[in-house]
């Protein structure tokens, strides 16, 4: 087995990286793949709660790297799915506990164990980001249709190019079709025109993402969720399938029929 390493990063914080990693990982596992996700945000552990695995943590990423446990011991298995694992971030304050070389070595070991390794990068362009992209075969840059998030995404795309980690693919999250239609939100086309990279996913703004996080149950587990489907489609595109993008505009029609302005 030679697993592929995919890192999700964004520059700006709060655009939905952790939610995406959780959903794409679950989606890949639902498609029968063996998946490990790694929380790369040392000191600010979060992927565990979004996946609902926070109560099962014994060892973390730093424990593996510093040799306090074996790799297998730090891989928490998600009981809802046969082959989904999480390696949680350490809550230590020492961010220098992990180096890019450590991540490359760790991923090298994981590649022989699983099909997909998804890394949740911290925001910013510092050490944690450098660690998260060090082993990546593919980087997904996440943004919102919002001026500062797009600017930061561009910065990160530029860094990825200069580190020869490109070409990155783009996920645009929190699209509000009503605002786009009204001319008060950048459209998918606007963002693609500005950033000039390939699109791999467009995700609508959806209150259910919050509900799913509250419960620790990623939305892809709900087969009726359109947002869940949008995440699932990213997983299938990673597998090489040609999946057309969802038409988010029908959401607008619904809102109109229901007479709501949300």
């Amino acid at each position, binding site marked *: 087995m030679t697993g592929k390493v995919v890192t999700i990063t964004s520059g700006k914080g709060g655009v939905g990286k952790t939610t995406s990693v959780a959903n794409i990982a679950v989606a890949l596992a639902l498609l029968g793949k063996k998946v490990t996700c790694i929380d790369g945000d040392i000191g600010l552990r979060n992927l565990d709660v979004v996946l609902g695995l926070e109560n099962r943590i014994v060892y973390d990423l730093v424990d593996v790297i510093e040799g306090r446990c074996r790799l297998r011991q730090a891989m928490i298995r998600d009981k809802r799915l046969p082959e989904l694992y999480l390696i949680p971030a350490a809550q230590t304050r020492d961010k220098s506990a992990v180096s890019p070389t450590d991540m490359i070595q760790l991923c090298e070991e994981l590649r022989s164990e699983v099909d997909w390794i998804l890394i949740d990068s911290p925001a910013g362009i510092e050490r944690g980001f450098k660690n998260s992209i060090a082993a990546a075969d593919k980087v997904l840059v996440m943004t919102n249709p919002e*001026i500062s998030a*797009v*600017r930061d995404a*561009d*910065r990160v*795309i*530029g860094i990825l*190019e200069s580190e020869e980690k490109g070409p990155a693919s783009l996920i645009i999250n929190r699209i509000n079709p009503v605002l*786009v239609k*009204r*001319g*008060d*939100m*950048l*459209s998918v086309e*606007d963002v693609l*025109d*500005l*950033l*000039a*990279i390939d699109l791999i996913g467009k995700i609508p703004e959806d209150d259910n993402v919050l509900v799913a996080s509250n419960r620790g149950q990623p939305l892809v587990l709900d087969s009726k969720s359109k947002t869940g489907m949008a995440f699932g489609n990213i997983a299938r595109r990673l597998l090489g399938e040609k999946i057309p993008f969802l038409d988010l505009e029908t959401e607008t029609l619904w809102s109109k029929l229901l007479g709501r302005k949300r």
Partner: protein
Amino acid sequence: MRLFGFKKSASSAKERLQLVLIHDRTDLNTSQLESLKDDLIATISRHVAIDPSGVLISIARDGRSQRLIADIPLSTALRHRR
């Protein structure tokens, strides 16, 4: 509600981003661009007579790469127009 003129806010965002991204990507700010322009005028003037007031320097986007575009009118062309 449009508080700042009649332009839709998404178009303002896009236009502002286009400018900001050019500067972010090239690390060239407006004053550096001005000094580049002055140097260009000085250098070219040593070889051929140009109209310094008509020189236009701009950066165009082409996908993820940037292109520096200099439009430099020669003085002879200026004489013809008069």
